[in-house]
């Protein structure tokens, strides 16, 4: 069973990574990051169960909380971006070029 959970996690992570690399939409990128974070959560819970301890679940809860905070900041940034440019396409936003 452990193997199945890890395959699921790897698939989720890969999906997220693919989305992260290919999306142009800032919201899409944020969603992809959430997917990857959840893949990590799956791994934490799976290993916690494997070892028969609660540490994995506790840590997953922590991760969730932190991810929520991160998503809040990310979405706030996206809204600001939208107010500036009337779109959320990241390719065009290159004002920070050195």
């Amino acid at each position, binding site marked *: 069973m452990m193997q199945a959970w890890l395959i699921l996690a790897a698939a989720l992570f890969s999906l997220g990574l693919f989305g992260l690399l290919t999306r142009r939409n800032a919201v899409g990128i944020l969603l992809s990051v959430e997917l990857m974070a959840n893949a990590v959560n799956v791994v934490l819970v799976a290993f916690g169960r494997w070892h028969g301890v609660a540490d994995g679940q506790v840590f997953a809860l922590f991760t969730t909380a932190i991810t929520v905070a991160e998503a809040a900041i990310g979405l706030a940034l996206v809204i600001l971006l939208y107010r500036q440019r009337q779109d959320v396409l990241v390719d065009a936003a290159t004002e920070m070029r*050195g």
Partner: protein
Amino acid sequence: MLELTPLQWAQLALWVPLLSAVVLAAVWPLRKAGGPAAGVSLVAATVNLAAAAVLLFGWLNGAEDVRHTAPWLIGGQGLIELGVHLDGVSVSMLLVVAVVAWGVQVFSLGYLADEPKAGFGRYYTWQSLFLFSMNSLVLAPNLLQLFLGWELVGLCSYLLIGYWFTKPSAAKAALKAFWVTKFADMGLLLGLIVLYTHTGGFEWTATTTAATTVTLLFFLAVMGKSAQFPLHIWLPDAMEGPTPVSALLHAATMVAAGVFLVVRAAPLFAQAPLTGEVMTWIGAFTALFAASIAVVQTDIKKVLAYSTCSQLGYMVAALGSGAVLGGYFHLTTHAFFKALLFLAAGGLIHAVHSNEISHMGGLLKKLPVTGWTFIIGALALAGFPGFSGFFSKDLILEGVAHQGQWVPLAMLLVGAFLTAFYMGRVVFIALLGAPSEHAAHAHEGGGSMKLPLLVLAVPALALGFFAGPVAGLWGHEYHFHLGWVGLTASALGLAGIGLSWVMFAKGGAQGLLAAFAPVGALARSGAVDRLWATGYRQGLQVLGGAIAWLDRYVIDALMNLIGYLSLALGDRLRAVQTGNVRDYVYAVVAGLLLLGAWGAMFPG
């Protein structure tokens, strides 16, 4: 009579003058009162004189040497001590200093009587400080304390030369003396450092392989303090100070500190034949050079100043040739007769209010005591047979001849002729010549200006006959013996006096004056001063130029290069910051992959 041990007498000689200086410095109402301040200083000088006399009497009767030290600093290689060392050398020097200092302080009562009270008090404060400084130098049990005293007397010299500090020339002369001697004193400091690193102490009895380095460095300091060519340039200028100061510091005691150092460190100097050779040549050259300049000076103090340079040259040459007894004995006799000459010159100056010998003339009749004591001093300086200078100069010349140093010996003999000649010139013009209008109202000073002259005239006249006991003090033997060198020197001295009589009393042989014209031109042009000044300036400019070049083209260039490289690199690195979020994401993923690859390749 007080029953005190020699050590207690020495402590008295050391601390009473310091106490006087501190009291006069701290209690300003006393200092500003003038006369009472002089009284305090004079009491200290008298106690010092009594202590020195008792000590010398003890040592003439074969007292045991005393060494008393107290720890001062914990050095890297042991304890550094200060204290008192009493032996024949220090005790006799102590008495020389005490007698001259006492005479000078008494003389100053009359000489500086017209000074403002505050200045008078200030003068005596410094006189007391000088007495303490010189005693701490003379009584030093090691070379480090000698160095401390050496610097202290240098400070007193600066203060006393600049006594009339509102006069620009006096302030300048004080500074010049300070700078020139300080430049030379670096040699003493460096020599002490080398000595300490080699022997772990400051003992003059040390045996070391670095003796030549150490003594050559010491000799640099001696050249500064004892005004040897080419570092003699400060001494003639130092005559800006009051005449009694010139008598005490710049003729009898402080300038002799250089010679005293060599006498004290004789065991070290004996290990360095090269230093001795250098000393003989420089001393002999200074003796001749300064004597020839003294011939053309018209200022009586300048004549005596150059004469002091010249006589110190004799001492240095003697010590260089290993004639320690001759050098030290001449120091002693010279201290008395030169202090006498300066004080008597002060009396003459006081009478006519001018330093020019041409403004004097016929003063012997008006100032008999001053005049006759001056003549005694002049005869002693000229080495007239029977006078003290005759015996000590003979010892020096015999010593140099004994070493087979024929060229220096010739210089010293010519110097002896010139010495007699220039002293004859001063005597025949200032004392016996036709009276000038400046001298019309000249009259002798009071008792305080006569007594020191009479006191100093005794050793100037007769010390030579006590050469035996004095030599015994220093562990030497003395037997009077007049060889061909001594006879030649005496003949040359008499010839010098005779020639000056012909030229300045009879007005003959005036053509010879032209012979000295080039020397006069050289002396007036201040060539040596200028050489130093330009050397200093050019040296500093060249050094400064080199440093500026290094700063501009090496250090600045290095900094500029670093700046340029940072800018260029930054310019290249700018391209990395595209501002596109996805590029950053790619970079993060690439980094992640690299880390993964790393972990896979090197597990654990």
